């Protein structure tokens, strides 16, 4: 497309776009770059003499009995391959003596790798890249500043320029041109997943120091709409000046606890701009506790920490969250420079390190969209306790005509947080479900009504399925009778489970297979029960989809659909609107690597924009099969 072929409309658009984008004030910023280890590791993974093994999301298992790791400790480490993110404690089955090392135990430690398994090509997302090893000599690794440098016969690579060989000539000082070779001996410890941390109103100065190399990333949020995303590349060795502790949050809701290290999880309310706190001396938490590392204003009690005994007596204050991030040579300034902690030589005491609880203290374990199993279990446990103790018994009595005491039912991903009560008249067992009071729930609807507050689900009553929904905003309790309304409420639960917890087979509505298949012109439309829809496929193939929307699809909706389709080959997705015009998906198809959506075939997601009411025809094609879906889109 060039100017010569422009219609007047296009020419106007071209000129207007230029005017529009000219208004963007682009600030000159320094060239972004990765830490040397990261960049080098990504240059070339081709083995020269021995294969380079990259351990993605690996778990370092300590095959030693040491309960506490100290600087310069030498331990035997084997890097095994699992899909568990760093920091999640997966107990190995082979030995009770082994345990998983969490990230806050890695700084300033020295390791010997005795085995390395697993391979991946996703270097930018990998947090550990284990270099050559195999049957060769054990490799010693130093964990420094969030990056890991391998050492071998020549010492740290930044000093000796290891080139992936045991030959003496490889011990020459590093030559910039030999970066690729040096990379072969580098083990990189990056921070797991781009955590997309955000500070509102903060001014951040991030200084990364790796050996003799120092570089700096400035992230000033004040000039960018008070929003700033910090990526993992910004986090390697950090110096922070946080000016607005009390306003820190994350996109789309509260900062996940697992990412709350910037808030200093110990007590985020304790440090506020303008606070005047009595002086406190923060001691270095090196094993000998000999260095007074920094002073500032603040009281030890104002920042919850752990008084860790030192190896030679005395104690040191360990800031749990700081300890999660800080590395041996880092300096951290907290809160307008009023509290300074400096840990120039390490941070480990003789006692046990703070527990690496992924729900509270470990910043590296959880991604926002995919909580760890521990996090899910903790959420369920918390919700069960809090919700069942907060049920309004008077409301329950009104709705169910009973004053019986509530019984707490076992809760699962199927039924959400739940308490139950036996129904004295109708028999059966009534389950009381309280939807969490959060933005997430406010997005849900039953029919066209927003769903908030309490929902009473009596689906097990013998008189038939009935769902009671309380709209807190209007203070109205509505009873929904019959399978359709029940399905809507069930679908809401399904969607909740799918957005917050991984999809499970138990939450997929059933009954689709008994309904007539869709046909051209929506005569009939493809069968849908709750969120799930079934496609019309050739004999021997299947297509099912989960719609990420509430109720019927309406004109103007962007709807994400997760597909499971049998067959082979990539998925091609097209759609035709009621006017016969082709309307390709606005997102996807994006293949999914893994899921518990329990239908046959491979999984993708696509997002369609249904911009007009009427019968929409979706076609999904693989190499050896084609399926059709007809959706009747309702007017808005």
């Amino acid at each position, binding site marked *: 497309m060039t100017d010569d072929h422009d219609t007047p409309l*296009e020419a*106007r*658009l071209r000129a207007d776009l230029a005017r529009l984008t000219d208004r963007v004030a682009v600030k000159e910023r320094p060239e972004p770059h990765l830490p040397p280890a990261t960049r080098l590791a990504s240059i070339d993974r081709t083995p020269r003499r021995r294969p380079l093994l990259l351990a993605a999301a690996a778990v370092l298992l300590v095959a030693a009995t040491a309960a506490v790791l100290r600087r310069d400790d030498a331990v035997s480490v084997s890097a095994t391959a699992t899909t568990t993110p760093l920091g999640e404690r997966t107990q190995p089955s082979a030995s009770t003596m082994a345990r998983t090392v969490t990230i806050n135990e890695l700084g300033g430690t020295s390791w010997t790798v005795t085995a390395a398994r697993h391979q991946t090509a996703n270097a930018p997302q990998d947090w550990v890249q284990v270099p050559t090893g195999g049957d060769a000599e054990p490799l010693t690794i130093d964990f420094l500043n969030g990056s890991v440098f391998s050492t071998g016969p020549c010492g740290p690579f930044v000093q000796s320029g290891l080139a992936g060989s045991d030959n003496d000539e490889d011990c020459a000082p590093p030559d910039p041109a030999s970066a690729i070779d040096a990379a072969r001996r580098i083990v990189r410890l990056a921070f797991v997943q781009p955590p997309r941390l955000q500070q509102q109103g903060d001014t951040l100065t991030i200084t990364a120091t790796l050996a003799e190399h120092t570089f700096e990333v400035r992230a000033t949020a004040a000039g960018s709409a008070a929003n700033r995303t910090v990526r993992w*590349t910004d986090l390697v060795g950090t110096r922070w000046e946080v000016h607005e502790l009390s306003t820190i949050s994350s996109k789309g809701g509260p900062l996940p606890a697992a990412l709350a290290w910037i808030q200093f999880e110990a007590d985020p309310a304790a440090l506020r701009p303008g606070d005047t706190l009595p002086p406190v001396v923060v001691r270095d938490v090196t094993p000998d506790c000999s260095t007074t590392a920094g002073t500032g204003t603040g009281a030890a009690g104002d920042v919850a920490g752990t008084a860790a005994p030192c190896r030679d007596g005395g104690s040191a204050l360990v800031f749990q969250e700081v300890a999660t991030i800080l590395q041996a040579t880092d300096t951290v300034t907290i809160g307008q420079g009023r509290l300074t902690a400096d840990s120039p030589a390490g941070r480990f005491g003789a006692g046990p390190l703070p527990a690496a609880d992924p729900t509270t203290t470990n910043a590296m374990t959880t991604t926002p969209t995919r909580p760890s199993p521990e996090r899910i279990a903790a959420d369920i446990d918390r919700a069960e306790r809090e919700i069942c103790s907060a049920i309004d018994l008077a409301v329950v009595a009104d709705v169910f005509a009973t004053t019986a005491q509530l019984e707490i039912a076992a809760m699962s991903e199927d039924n959400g947080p739940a308490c139950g009560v036996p129904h004295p008249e109708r028999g059966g067992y009534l389950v009381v479900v309280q939807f969490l009071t959060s933005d997430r729930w406010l997005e849900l609807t039953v029919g066209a009504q927003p769903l908030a507050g309490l929902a009473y689900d009596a689906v097990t009553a013998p008189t038939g399925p009935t769902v009671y929904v309380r709209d807190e905003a209007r203070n109205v309790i509505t009873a929904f009778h019959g399978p359709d309304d029940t399905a809507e409420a069930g679908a809401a639960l399904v969607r909740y489970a799918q957005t917050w917890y991984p999809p499970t087979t138990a939450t997929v509505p059933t009954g689709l297979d008994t309904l007539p298949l869709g046909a051209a012109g929506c005569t009939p439309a493809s069968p849908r029960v709750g969120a799930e829809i079934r496609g019309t496929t050739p004999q021997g193939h299947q297509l099912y989809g989960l719609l990420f929307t509430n109720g019927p699809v309406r004109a103007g909706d962007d709807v994400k659909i997760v597909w499971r389709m049998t067959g082979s080959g990539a998925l091609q997705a097209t759609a035709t609107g009621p006017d016969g015009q082709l309307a390709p998906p606005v997102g996807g198809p994006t293949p999914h690597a893994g899921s518990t959506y329990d239908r046959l075939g491979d999984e993708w997601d696509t997002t369609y924009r249904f911009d007009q009411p009427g019968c929409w025809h979706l076609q999904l094609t693989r190499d050896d099969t084609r399926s059709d879906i007809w959706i009747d889109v309702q007017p808005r």
Partner: protein
Amino acid sequence: MGVSDGRAAGTGQLWRCSQGWMTRLAWLTLGGDLAAAEDAVSETWVRCLPRLAGMDRPEPYLRVALINVCLNQLRHEQVVQAHAQRNTGALSAVVADDPHLVELADVLTALAPQQRAVIALRYLHDCEDGEIAEALGVTRATVRSHARHALANLREVLSR
């Protein structure tokens, strides 16, 4: 540049030349979120950095990478359902003194991300449909379809 600062050799000049157009392209594609655009540019740069040295024409490569970073980000935000609320009016905020551009920005914001990307690449960067198709990983017919739908939505405001 050598090992010590983690950059590919000779990329400084390229960065200075590219920062502006990359930020503007990301800003438009992301619906007016300048902070997100800057992040996308930075992420694109560090991803591409190892391959830039020695590349004859790095701009198309950067453009494809940037568009994919932007669309991935929008896809992510669509999942967390936070994007629409946060970015409402963000494009038009920078042209508040020009009613016509405000209207245009509002329509652009309402477009689907892939449609917006097609508009940006076609009319801001003069890309051929084949290049756009390659950048987005779709067919030329899909590019034309996106453009047609987007232009249909823009027609009213552009006709005034």
